[in-house]
């Protein structure tokens, strides 16, 4: 595909060991190298992810038996708020673009860095500042916010817990997300290698591109909304207060105008990762490249118009409900197009079973379950029945964790050799994958049943008839958590003890596999010129060349 393979043989320190302006930690936190910034994001994000996992496990322990088990109701409320805020704003929204987008985007389009490297570092600093602001709320008198991650008014204006630090943290994190998106769009427009036309870009780049647009166009809305709640708390201008003529439902509209598109910030890059991994492990050219590329754009644009399906029960005109329900059904079409194309790619492929593909396969099944239950929720009649129950919680965990989260782990295992120059030890990874898949489905599928039977979300306690199902879910959550910790521990151990990774361990055809593992600071000695599309497996597809 390129000529740079030869040049890469020349010994040059990789980005992990190259001399930097500052020594030690400062060499990282002041580095403008997109690869180092990606690792910074990865480290901070993983830390917060594990904290939120522990919070989740503790909540499941609390629900294991009736009455008080380990914490009191107020602490429980603060725990689910913190779990939500961390998972959404600190893990899954920045996760894929900031870590893998940052690391892989320049490599995959044949560039030496992103367009604004210093802005990129500034984004990470903002991310850290936002994260610390959220953490500060834990230690101020009053304790962390107990509003749920949605910060619904009027409660978020009345509660005495520290809502403002949480809002300010989310605001700063949003700003960081906007700057990352802006950087990526400019990079993709201006820095593609010669010959890489739009339709020769890897599909992950298409996904990152669509995501970046959602990041910059949707995030400001949550910015102003959170600012309004802050002003409301500080000065009481009455915008969301019915006593002064304000409308609390307006808050929900503004909130979901961002937060529904944000769902696509979380899932689109995940879908992009799946589109990368499947052709490599099936040894086949991706089926329907253009359809997958356009479906990313379609999901991003239609997905921006469906926000009020979160609010079917708060009071809306019938026309409004009908339109939002219809649009919600429409988003399913581009999502399904992707799934069909992945399956068509796997069909008759020379499939190589390895850890990244296993995560991807779990992801596809779970994403489908999450998607279909999303359609059930989009249907007006069913929605009224299951609003604010475990059904909703199970649905979004299937999409966010079963989909985006599993894809993130797939990406981690797929690109780990490139990022750290080591192979991941396969056996613990496979056991971890098995535990995660079994635990995940045991946990959240049970929640679907609980929700359909009427178990409301965010409740501290449950009726006795729900207890057996709660116990199954709790055990599932522990298996899932065991799997997560095994996988993460294995990643850490593999950084030191894994076998040395070759340049292209999986047989990938995209540009990041044409540079050494780990890549040198400048990525490419000479900017490659691109001739073929990103997934050229024609040699495997000839009948005589079967593997």
């Amino acid at each position, binding site marked *: 595909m390129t000529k740079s393979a030869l040049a890469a043989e020349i010994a040059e320190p990789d980005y992990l060991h190259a001399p930097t302006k500052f020594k030690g930690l400062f060499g990282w936190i002041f580095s403008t190298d997109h690869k180092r910034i990606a690792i910074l994001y990865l480290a901070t994000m993983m830390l917060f992810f594990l904290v939120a996992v522990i919070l989740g496990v503790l909540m499941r322990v609390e629900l294991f038996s009736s009455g008080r088990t380990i914490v009191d109701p107020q602490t429980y409320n603060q725990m689910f708020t913190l779990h939500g805020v961390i998972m959404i704003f600190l893990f899954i929204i920045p996760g894929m673009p900031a870590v893998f987008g940052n690391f892989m985007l320049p490599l995959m389009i044949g560039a030496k860095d992103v367009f604004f490297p210093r802005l990129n570092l500034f984004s990470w600093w903002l991310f850290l500042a936002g994260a610390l602001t959220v953490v500060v709320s834990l230690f101020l008198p009053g304790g962390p916010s107990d509003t749920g991650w949605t910060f619904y008014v009027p409660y978020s204006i009345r509660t005495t817990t520290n809502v403002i630090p949480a809002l300010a943290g989310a605001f700063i994190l949003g700003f960081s997300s906007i700057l990352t998106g802006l950087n990526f769009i400019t990079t993709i427009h201006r820095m593609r290698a010669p010959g890489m036309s739009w339709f020769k870009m890897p599909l992950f780049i298409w996904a990152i591109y669509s995501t970046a647009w959602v990041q910059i166009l949707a995030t400001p809305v949550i910015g102003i909304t959170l600012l309004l709640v802050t002003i409301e708390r500080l*000065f009481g201008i*009455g915008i969301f207060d019915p006593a002064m003529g304000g409308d609390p439902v307006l808050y929900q509209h503004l909130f979901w105008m961002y937060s529904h598109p944000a769902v696509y910030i979380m899932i689109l890059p995940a879908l992009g990762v799946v589109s990368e991994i499947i052709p490599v492990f099936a040894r086949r050219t991706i089926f329907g490249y253009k359809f997958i590329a356009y479906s990313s754009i379609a999901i991003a644009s239609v997905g921006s118009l469906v926000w009020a399906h979160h609010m079917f029960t708060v009071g809306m005109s019938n026309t409004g409900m009908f339109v939002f329900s219809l649009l919600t059904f429409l988003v399913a079409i581009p999502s399904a197009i992707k799934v069909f194309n992945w399956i068509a790619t796997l069909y008759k492929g020379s499939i190589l079973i390895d850890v990244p593909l296993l995560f991807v396969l779990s992801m596809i099944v779970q994403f489908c379950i999450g998607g279909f239950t999303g359609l059930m929720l989009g249907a007006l009649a069913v929605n009224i029945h299951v609003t604010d129950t475990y059904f909703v919680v199970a649905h979004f965990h299937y999409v966010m964790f079963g989909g985006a989260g599993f894809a993130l782990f797939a990406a981690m295992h797929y690109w780990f050799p490139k990022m750290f120059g080591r192979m991941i030890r396969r056996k613990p990874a496979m056991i971890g994958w098995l535990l995660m898949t079994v635990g995940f489905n045991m946990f959240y599928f049970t929640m679907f049943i609980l929700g359909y039977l009427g178990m409301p979300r965010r409740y501290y306690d449950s009726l006795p008839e729900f207890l057996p199902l709660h116990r199954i879910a709790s055990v599932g959550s522990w298996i899932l958590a065991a799997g997560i910790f095994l996988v993460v521990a294995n990643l850490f151990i593999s950084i030191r003890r894994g076998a040395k990774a070759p340049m292209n361990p999986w047989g990938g055809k995209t540009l990041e596999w044409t540079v050494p593992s780990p890549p040198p600071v400048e990525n490419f000695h000479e900017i490659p010129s691109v001739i073929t599309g990103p997934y050229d497996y024609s040699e495997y597809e000839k009948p005589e060349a079967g593997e």
Partner: protein
Amino acid sequence: MSKAAAVSHTHRDDEGSRIGMWLFLFTELILFGGMFIVYAVYRFKHFDEFRIAGAELDVFIGTLNTLILLTSSWTVVMSIAAIRRGKKILSMSLLSATIVLAFFFLVNKYFEWSHKIAHGIYPKSPELMKKPAGEILYFGLYYMMTGLHALHVIIGMIILGFMLVFIARNVINQDSFVKLEAGGLYWHLVDIIWIFLFPLFYLIH
């Protein structure tokens, strides 16, 4: 140092920098867009009360501020035109004029706000709470939106101040003025938002 300079030279792409700036301006517009939605909803709900409250603002001071901002946008454009012709001193004086005009805008805003506050109209004031809901919301939005705009004026002044330093140090010069263009674009954004705020609060009765 020489290597870093060489790298930055090869990476220079003014078109890309402009794309980045425009994308950022989109986000700013949408930030205010959220406020305009809130305004539209409440104006629709409390049509008459918004009219009555709107009549209480001083159209003269609003018009004056509009003229000040429009003039300041003109001086920014002229400042870019001057640097393109290599007239460093002229460019710097025009830019300084912009900052001074921005300062006048804020002074007017200060008098306007303190006048209202002296009359007992500020969030949660006893005077305001006696008024009907629509007027409370009107003044809530007035303080929120003009306040957010004033914050952007201050940020704009800081940005233009940096530009002034860059011109003085020849970082911005006849061949490389994309930074100044970006600063100018930001200033126009501040201007354009005011162009919408002015009729919405002062003129529509």
